[in-house]
């Protein structure tokens, strides 16, 4: 067993456990913390995949910015305890759980069926991956990159406008 494998299994266990905690814990603050944990886990997994730049961005954007946003909103509302964390309805609940189970089963089954247990040998990364990434991003995908910038601007304006409104769907006053 190589160090890679050990690392993967540990990280996979942590990430999956953290993800489950996000969904299962009733306190949203704990959910948020677990989500941070998941993000960090995935970031570490990115590192094992030699995607250092993406791993860094993952940490900064998700674990940093997005999660701060979540926690701030949570703090804003002061939501500590939820009486009903899950939806009611036994029938629909059963259906939902069943659907989720089937979905995961199907996807995993499909993956295993298509590749079996054989592993595809990894293609060795050539040279400095971050540099290559930057070159592609600012040449081939420049338009997408710029469009994303515009999108973020629009979203920023939209989010501010939405939060400033009086709220509610039938606001009249």
């Amino acid at each position: 067993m190589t160090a890679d494998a050990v690392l993967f299994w540990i990280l996979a266990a942590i990430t999956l456990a953290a993800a489950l905690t996000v969904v299962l814990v009733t306190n949203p603050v704990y959910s948020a913390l677990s989500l941070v944990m998941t993000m960090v886990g995935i970031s570490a997994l990115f590192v094992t995949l030699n995607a250092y730049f993406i791993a860094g961005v993952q940490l900064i954007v998700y674990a940093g910015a997005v999660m701060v946003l979540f926690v701030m909103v949570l703090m804003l509302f002061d939501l500590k305890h939820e009486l009903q964390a899950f939806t009611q309805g036994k029938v629909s609940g059963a259906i939902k759980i069943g659907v989720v189970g089937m979905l995961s089963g199907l996807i995993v089954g499909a993956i295993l069926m298509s590749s079996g247990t054989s592993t595809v040998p990894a293609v060795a990364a050539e040279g400095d991956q971050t540099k290559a990434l930057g070159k592609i991003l600012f040449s081939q995908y420049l338009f997408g990159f710029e469009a994303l910038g515009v999108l973020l601007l629009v979203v920023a304006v939209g989010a501010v406008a939405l939060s400033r409104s009086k709220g509610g769907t039938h606001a009249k006053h």
Partner: protein
Amino acid sequence: MPSIDFVTQVGLTHYLVLSALIFSVGVAGVLLRKNAIVLLMSVELMLNSVNLTFVAFSKYSGKLEGNIMVFFVMTIAAAEAAVGLALVVSIFKRFKEVNIRFFEHLKG
């Protein structure tokens, strides 16, 4: 039966299966939780699992486009979180709660 190779030889399949499992957890969260913020978190989970898939494919196919995609997805996810949270704030202002069922009023 998973052979010993499956445990020791970590490859693309492992990452994909892990990603699928995280995705399913995210779906479960979206379907089952009532708190709108937790719902958004579950959506983030799903997006992250997909990111993991992209990076894994990128590594095992040797193409950098996967990483570019992840970059884009992250940005979109951040935007989505911002808008979603703004909506949650609106709902909270109106109903003093962030239960997803208040979105039912959107059906008119």
